[in-house]
């Protein structure tokens, strides 16, 4: 891959107390592409994803060794401001988690957090983010209604809009379509593909077809190890590792 690397993990090990959840993971993730993380349940996909924006810091008893560099800076370094890191590496969760506020306030939450005031400015950000998340037309007449009244698929796209509103560089998506119907799923997939000209997307998915449809690169995890990583087309047509082949052909997992 000739593309610029935006995130690079080297010899990453992660322990939840004495559970060795990531084992020597090294991976370089290229900018402005979609990278899919696949693997059976419990193999460490979410764990790896959460090391990238340090959401693992919230879990008591986590221990991490190795390095992760974001634009050449160690994100676990001494002087890192986690809030800045998370502003640049946004996250969309598996379960849509809009705040119990209006649709508008949900999207404006991040910008406000980062000090943006002024109605005109916020209005513009909210509209742009909702448009980018392909939900503007559905909610433009009810911006002041509670976000909890939206359907599951709409809530998830709202959460994407909320993440986009802080203008991150990287968006982490942890099985963000797994709870959605096919139409919402394909909307979000289209969205991810559109976004990659401006953002780097890293998505965990259980859905092999989805990985093939949307991702440029695929990483296959098994029992905390990164077994194989490369261009999606290559991984799915000529897997080099027997375990990868077994997994993508559905022989286990």
């Amino acid at each position: 891959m000739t593309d610029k690397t935006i995130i690079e993990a080297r010899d990453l090990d992660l322990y939840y107390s004495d559970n060795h959840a990531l084992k020597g993971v090294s991976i370089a993730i290229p900018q402005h592409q979609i990278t899919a993380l696949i693997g059976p349940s419990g193999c460490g996909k979410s764990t790896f994803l959460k090391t990238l924006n340090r959401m693992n810091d919230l879990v008591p008893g986590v221990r991490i060794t190795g390095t992760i560099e974001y634009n050449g800076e160690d994100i676990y370094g001494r002087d890192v401001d986690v809030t800045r890191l998370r502003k640049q590496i946004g996250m969309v969760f598996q379960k849509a988690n809009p705040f119990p506020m209006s649709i508008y306030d949900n999207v404006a939450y991040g910008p406000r957090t980062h000090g943006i005031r002024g109605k005109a400015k916020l209005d513009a950000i909210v509209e742009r983010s909702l448009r980018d998340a392909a939900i503007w037309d559905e909610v433009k007449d009810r911006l002041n209604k509670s976000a909890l009244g939206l359907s599951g698929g709409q809530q998830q796209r709202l959460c994407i809009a909320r993440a986009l509103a802080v203008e991150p560089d990287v968006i982490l998506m942890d099985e963000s379509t797994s709870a959605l119907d096919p139409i919402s799923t394909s909307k979000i997939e289209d969205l991810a593909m559109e976004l990659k000209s401006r953002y780097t997307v890293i998505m965990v998915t259980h859905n092999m077809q989805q990985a093939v449809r949307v991702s440029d690169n695929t990483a296959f995890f098994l029992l905390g190890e990164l077994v194989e990583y490369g261009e999606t087309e290559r991984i799915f047509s000529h897997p080099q590792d027997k375990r990868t082949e077994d997994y993508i052909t559905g022989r286990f997992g």
Partner: protein
Amino acid sequence: MNSHESITAPLSARRRTWNGAVRALLYAAAALICALLVFLIGYILYRGVPNLSWQFLSSEESVINDIEGILPSILNTLYVIVATLIFILPLGVGSAIYLTEYATNKKLVSVIEFATETLSGMPSIIFALVGMMVFCQAVGLGTSLLAGAFSLVMMTLPTIIRTTQESLKTVPQSYREGSLALGSGKWHMIRTVVLPSSIDGIVTGCILSIGRIVGESAVLMFTAGMGMRMAFGGDTVAKFLDNFFGAAGSTLTVSLYVYAKERADFDHAFAVAVVLLAIALVINLAAKLAGKKLKKN
């Protein structure tokens, strides 16, 4: 194979008498409670209302002019409520936030939780005794409403910590994660997401604490005094302040005690009871309303 049983089979006779007996018992219990409640409220109103007058509520008692009045007790009650709340709100809500959101030592937290739970179930007369020893004597506040308020702080703090903690714990973890993932600092996250979604529980807890303060008598008899005369006021600022911080006297519950037990004046004791009943009603309605109103968003 399982055989298909009809779902319309009639109940057996034994089953039916059993059901009937249970239902009758439940009705009897409900009727008894209702009757008791109606009797209690009816009796208080019947004995108290005829003795209630605007003058009774709005004047200070005067033996010379033969005037009965509980204005001082009403003011004392307000004073104690406000003085107690000033301390328990920041202290209680603050500790609860610390314990649920910040503290990392889970063992210590569970010890503290056990302690607050135990303390909130303790008989108030113990707080009365401790308050008298500590605030009236050791600290030197003497018998005063302020000493009473401090003793009530001891008594209600565990409760308010507990109720606040309970309502903080109902906030889904996903809200916290969602906020932090957008780059919020911890306190910003708490202020903008956690507190707004638990505010109804916190406010309800506070209002119920006010209820406990209004209803408390033992602690105040021990620490705040039982006088029925106006304790506030003064013609110079210094005197006013001195009176303000040193005031001693009876709150409504204590004046009820004084009327009933020291003066055998049951008419006025019941009049005070009506006032307390009305306050309890208002407090409970306020708690309900606040809970509902704040929950909406």
